[in-house]
């Protein structure tokens, strides 16, 4: 997934090979990760796709099914991976992930601790940020989840950057061997305040901690504990609003003068909508009354809450 493996880096010359992980893109909301294997096929509602047809083609191209329908094959990125990974837990999405990586001041070479691993959505982005020389230590108390996460990191080619361990961070704290080595710590735990004292031990001076919690009561308790060793304690909520873009035919004739007799019915929206097709035909004749305009408006539904992000900086005592 990352260009640290130089032969897999994106390039005009880079062609799909046997064993590659690709993202099969049908639509922006229908995507699937597929491991290319020369004898395998992909079957979806559009028909059957032979992997052998894909090998040797550049990434970002269309491939066709036996019924002549196409999908795109894309190179995996942490963003696409977040959209296709199997949800073993509630995951972090792009807005929170981006903000966390920026606010934790993660740059190449950093050592970052994370708990829990969950589905590995954030871990993948953290790995991208610390590459090529840094490392992410991720902890989860759930044995099976840790195993699945390791398998995923193997699949996406970031396993050399992420170490997953089974450990109850709330109960036991982070392992002593990492004491004073972490540039940043990320907590996504039900009772993060229990892990704060251990996180403080792990951090280098001036290191940054982030705690993600869906409920304000969790934030409240975490902040109370943070105040003893941390400064610059700040809590945020970050969300995304998406827009839909459409080309719309707009009747631009004025209500007075040049208008058609139907314009008197403008007070009744239903009727008017009904007539819009005719209006367009008329306007094409006159070529002045209806113009097509590209317009944007926010999508009607959006994620309204993910969690609160609390950041804090370890006090500098030395």
């Amino acid at each position, binding site marked *: 997934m990352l260009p*640290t493996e130089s032969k897999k880096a994106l390039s005009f010359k880079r062609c799909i090979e046997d064993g590659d992980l690709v993202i099969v893109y049908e639509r922006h909301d229908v995507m699937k990760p597929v491991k290319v294997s020369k004898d395998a096929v992909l079957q979806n509602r559009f028909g059957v796709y032979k992997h052998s047809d894909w090998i040797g083609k550049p990434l970002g191209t269309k491939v066709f099914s036996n019924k002549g329908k196409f999908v795109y094959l894309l190179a995996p990125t942490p963003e696409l991976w977040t959209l296709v990974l199997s949800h073993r837990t509630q995951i972090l999405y792009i807005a929170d992930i981006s903000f966390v*990586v920026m606010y934790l001041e993660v740059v*190449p070479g950093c050592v970052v601790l994370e708990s829990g691993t969950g589905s590995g959505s954030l871990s993948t982005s953290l790995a991208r940020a610390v*590459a090529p*020389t840094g490392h992410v230590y991720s902890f989860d108390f759930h044995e099976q989840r840790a195993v699945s996460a390791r398998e995923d990191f193997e699949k996406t080619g970031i396993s050399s950057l992420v170490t997953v361990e089974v450990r109850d961070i709330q109960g036991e704290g982070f392992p002593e061997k990492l004491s004073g080595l972490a*540039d940043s710590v990320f907590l996504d735990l039900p009772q993060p305040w229990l892990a704060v004292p251990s996180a403080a031990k792990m951090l280098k001076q001036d290191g940054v901690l982030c705690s993600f919690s869906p409920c304000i009561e969790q934030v409240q308790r975490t902040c109370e504990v943070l105040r003893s060793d941390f400064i610059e304690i700040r809590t945020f909520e970050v969300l995304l609003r998406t827009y839909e873009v459409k080309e719309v035919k707009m009747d631009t004739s004025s209500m007075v003068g040049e208008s058609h007799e139907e314009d008197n019915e403008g007070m009744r929206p239903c009727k008017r909508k009904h007539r819009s097709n005719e209006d367009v035909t008329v306007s094409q004749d006159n070529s002045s009354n209806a113009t097509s305009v590209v317009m944007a408006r926010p999508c009607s539904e959006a994620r309204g809450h993910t969690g609160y992000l609390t950041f804090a900086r370890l006090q*500098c005592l030395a």
Partner: protein
Amino acid sequence: MELNKDQTVMSEDKKPQDPNPRFACEGCSVLLDVNDGDRLVFARLSGGAILKIGNKNYSLKPLIGAPFGSLFQVETGEDGSFLSRILPIKQENSSNNVMEDSRDNREIVDNNEAQNLTGEEIEAMRREGAKGDEIIEALIANSKTFDKKFQLSQEKYKLKKQKKYAPKLLLRRPFARSICEAYFKKYPARIGFLRVDALSLLLTMANVTAYSDVLVVDMVGGLVTGAVAERLGGTGYVCNTYKGNSPYPVEMVRMFNFSDKVLERIVQSSIKELSSANTASPEGNNQQEGVCNAENNINETSSTSDIMVEEISATTEAGVVDIVVPESKVIKAAKAGAKASKETIEMWRENGFSSLIIAAQDQDPWSIAKDVLPLLSYSAPFVIYHQYLQPLATCMHKLQQGKMAINLQITEPWLREYQVLPSRSHPHMQMSSFGGYVLSGIRISTT
């Protein structure tokens, strides 16, 4: 010429090559946070650097060698006031029983008679070398209303007086995050109203990581260029491209504490140079470059003078974002943005860029995108930032029609900060309601 001089200065300074330096050394760029974010100042540390707080000048010399994250307070000694490092006092959870405090503001009358100490008396205390904390204690002792105040108002009162009589200064490392926040607070128009959450989205959506070749169109003063370079950590390239003959200024890159290794990875090249195939006659090319270099130099001198104006004005009006220049010797960071070498341009022609970020104010996104998008590898992600929605909508529509990209989406980040205190948690009363729009997508092969 000047470039060479700068470089010698830098190498003499032995700038640490640690990717993540933890100490503020002489000659490095630092961010000074006065009174918990009330004022943010960028400074380059040297023995002669001076910062004005209130109506007094303070030498920044005590900051040299201190770890980032250190706290300083104004102290008065025999030779006047100076900055002195303080170790933080552990705060005990004292305000847990706020709800039981029954005092309120019924007895507080705003008649300006609450304080018995006069301005002259306070000034006299200061002259005699009283510490800031002592003045605050005296103010509280002489306040008729302090005891009647609600516990929380008492805390607020103390904080207000502390800021005035015992200002604190926090030494911070400049990062993309803090640089963006500081500019957004003071000069949002200079960075095209690009808020820190929007900047973080750009970096994420453009898949910026070590060993990538990121093409940027940075018309926000170098903020995007610097933020990308920070994530590359001295590998790959960030190539700043531009229309016409003169590159866009990237002076904000100086605020980051980049090592030479990182700075070498920041290059520039015009859209024309990047797009032209090898068909142009070599002679014509040379001539073209001669013109470019001449204009570059002009551009560099003019942008330097811009910075000087900013520096001078900073000393007269106490802004949130100032730049402090040492009085005696100006130590400058090495210049970023050398011309991309022929070999590198050739490499990009063969392989394509691995991602693209456009943050071009006053430019139509589509007219840039249509020229630079073909420079990207297939399946490469791109992002276009703009402070207006309409041009992005038009751009997205044209990309869709031209079947040049998939996974197209316009998003607008929304960021809200919270006050979290025992029994007093709520969103901040004031918030930024706009941080820009982002169009993202993935380039596809049309063949």
